């Protein structure tokens, strides 16, 4: 029997904090053979990254290995000295980090950084030639020209390729990729992951992929380990995990991961809701929102270019696009937080685009159009308790003064979004991501608006929390006849949540239509490309393949 490349036995990692020691990893055991691929999937706080950092001993100062052993090529490296670890890192074990732009040195050219990673000359050819070969291998076009470029001159995807080039520079036996594509666009994610998979296979490297995305792990890894609260709850090959997850947590995780066919109800394991039926509107009713030829320029850059669409009362419309597509700008233009450069925004037939954004808070339409922001943490005032955050629009726009009526209203809002009333006195940093998302939604629906703009409301949430929040939003829309403008980069989510979808690219509409039809039969090449790039795992297809 061969020795596994890496074997972790009953690893415990603790962090000392103000509240005493927190056990981040509690008895993880796993092994990986040379050349194999292992996905470690878990939500934030599950200890997946800490496990990897413990292996490479890059834990921050408060963290330490409190138990267990780590073997690399049969050698115990649990208590190896700093010098030994330094030799292992980069040489035999290397890492690709989450935020490539932050991980690269901003004041050194990328070619130089790859040369640095190669270290003192090894193998044939000059260091520069080797670095060029590596840049070529990670599919950087014109590596000769790009050699002297600085990180800020390159896109996020390009930076991640440079990181990969540096990670494989000294032909490590094990590559640990920690959320390598988080923050990248879906098409970029696909090229980066394809590249990573191909390079590790070609060079016979073992790959540990740490991710929150079950679909991504299953698509690229032979084996998948699911972590929860510092423990591995299930480990299986990808097909088995998807078809017959055993542990209740992995079952929930598999169910909560959106697939091209899932519905919102299925994500949380409920029966699908009946399709929404609406009473026909009387003839001549203006649409709730009508956008005509909307343009927004920043200096010479056109962020939104001639966008037109309409939204009927109670309808949900999805805006899909990658970064730079102008989708967030459109959401802020419609919320009247910024001013348009040209075009019209009509709300119930009345022009609201002409009002300057700086005066819109005095408009009677302010309370009709509300917004839920992308990052639930960043969207809550750190000095406001949950109660104050939800009460703020009620005080300002609802005219409610302090006292019983206000408290009653806030508690009712909290109830509508499923937020326990005893959490209302907490501050944002004392709430979990899902709870903060609920506060943000409660604040937006407090005034019973008719149009809710949702700017990537679940992008910063774990997948199981995302499932609950999506279900909540879907229920709210059904119960309260809210119209949604749902902005997202996640096509699966938009398909589930929206009746109609608009695909945007560089500020222009590429394609629009009913969601089901658009996803089943995309017409524009760009839409097809987007759809193909969604990481998803099809167990049946994998078996046939």
């Amino acid at each position, binding site marked *: 029997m061969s020795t596994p490349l890496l074997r972790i036995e009953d690893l415990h990692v603790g962090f000392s904090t103000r509240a005493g020691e927190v056990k981040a990893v509690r008895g993880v055991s796993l092994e990986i053979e040379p050349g194999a691929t292992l996905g470690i999937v878990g939500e934030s706080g599950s200890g997946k990254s800490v496990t990897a950092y413990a292996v490479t001993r890059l834990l921050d100062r408060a963290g330490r290995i409190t138990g267990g052993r780590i073997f690399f090529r049969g050698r115990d490296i649990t208590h190896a000295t700093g010098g030994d670890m330094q030799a292992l890192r980069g040489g035999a074990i290397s890492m690709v980090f989450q935020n490539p732009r932050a991980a690269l040195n901003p004041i050194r050219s990328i070619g130089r950084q790859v040369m640095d990673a190669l270290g003192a000359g090894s193998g044939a050819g000059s260091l520069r030639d080797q670095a060029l070969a590596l840049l070529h291998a990670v599919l950087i076009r014109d590596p000769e020209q790009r050699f002297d470029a600085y990180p800020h001159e390159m896109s996020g995807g390009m930076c991640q390729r440079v990181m990969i080039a540096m990670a494989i520079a000294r032909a490590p036996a094990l590559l640990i990729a920690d959320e390598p594509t988080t923050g990248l666009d879906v098409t970029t994610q696909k090229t980066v992951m394809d590249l990573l998979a191909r390079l590790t296979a070609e060079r016979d490297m073992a790959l540990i992929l740490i991710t929150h995305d079950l679909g991504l792990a299953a698509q690229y890894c032979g084996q998948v380990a699911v972590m929860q609260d510092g423990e591995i709850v299930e480990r299986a090959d990808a097909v088995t995990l998807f078809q017959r997850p055993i542990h209740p947590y992995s079952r929930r995780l598999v169910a909560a991961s959106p697939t091209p066919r899932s519905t919102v109800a299925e994500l949380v394991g409920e029966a699908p809701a009946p399709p929404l039926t609406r009473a026909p509107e009387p003839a001549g009713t203006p649409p709730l929102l009508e956008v005509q030829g909307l343009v927004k320029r920043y200096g010479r850059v056109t962020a939104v270019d001639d966008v037109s669409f309409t939204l009927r009362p109670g309808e949900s419309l999805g805006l899909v696009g990658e970064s730079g597509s102008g989708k967030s700008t459109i959401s802020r233009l419609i919320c009247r937080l910024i001013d348009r450069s040209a075009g019209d925004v009509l709300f119930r037939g009345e022009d609201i685009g002409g009002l300057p954004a700086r005066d819109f808070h005095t408009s009677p339409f302010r309370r009709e159009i509300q917004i839920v922001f992308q990052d639930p943490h960043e969207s809550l005032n750190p000095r406001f308790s949950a109660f104050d955050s939800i009460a703020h629009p009620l005080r300002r726009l609802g005219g409610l003064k302090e006292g019983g009526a206000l408290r009653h209203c806030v508690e009712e809002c909290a109830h509508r979004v499923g937020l326990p009333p005893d959490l209302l006195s907490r*501050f944002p940093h*004392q709430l979990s991501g899902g709870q903060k998302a609920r506060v943000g939604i409660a604040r937006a629906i407090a005034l019973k608006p008719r149009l809710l703009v949702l700017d990537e409301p679940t992008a910063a949430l774990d997948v199981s929390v995302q499932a609950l929040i999506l279900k909540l939003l879907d229920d709210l829309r059904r119960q309260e006849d809210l119209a949604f403008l749902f902005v997202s980069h996640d096509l699966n989510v938009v398909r589930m949540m929206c009746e109609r979808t608009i695909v945007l690219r560089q500020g222009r509409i590429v394609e629009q239509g009913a969601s089901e039809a658009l996803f089943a039969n995309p017409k524009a090449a760009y839409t097809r490309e987007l759809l193909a790039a969604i990481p998803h795992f099809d167990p049946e297809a994998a078996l046939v393949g």
Partner: protein
Amino acid sequence: MIATLRHAGWVLRGNPVTAVATLGAVLLLMLAAFAPWLMPYDPIESDVASALQPPSAAHWAGTDQLGRDILSRLMAATRLDLAIAASAVGVSFVLGAVIGSFCGYRGGRLDRVVGRVVDVLMAFPLFVLAMALVAALGNRVENIIIATAVINLPFYIRFARAEVNVRRDAGWVEAARAGGEGHLSVVLRFLLPNILPAMAVQISLNLGWAILNAAGLSFLGLGVTAPTPEWGIMVAEGARFISAGQWWLVAFPGLALMLAVLCFNLLGDGLRDILDPRMRT
């Protein structure tokens, strides 16, 4: 309120230096507040018969060349010096925070113009600028306050501008606007309270500096004039006697000055930990 105090207690327990500094600052403030009742002698009335006596049971810190009790004069000076420093810092904090916040929030031309004015102000040797201001405006306590406030103002403007600048695009600022706030109230009611913890550190460090500045001006004969008890004047007047071995005339006011400045400087970091709600669990 109780939660705030409990949290303050926690911060102080974990940080003995801050605890000592806090205690010192509180003692100084109490001394300043109750000086008229605590002083054993009149700080201004002279008693030539008992001039230049070394520290004794009757005069703990000795007497000066006019026979005035130095301890009483120190207490009265604490009141004056802290009042000057606090009002100067208060004025520059309020003006600086408001001007800086609006510049940081608005950006654009206003920000550039104010930024250059601040640059020009900071290019002057600050103490010389303060001296010039007092010389031009006249030797009065109000003018020391104005001069000290003017030379501190640029730091507050810059600080507030930078702190607001990093927060102005935060989701909660946009959320406040969606909740019906105009730009003015976003700055005053949302951004300003959020930059307070960071500014508190600046205020505390600045208080020490402002005390030193006021004493320095008086030491040079600009500002508070004799016979008003003030640390700077006391040092200046006592300096003549140090060669004759009458050290207590200079040592005690100097020590008082040093301890006051030290207390406020050490207080800074602890204050931020106490005021920032995110530091609580």
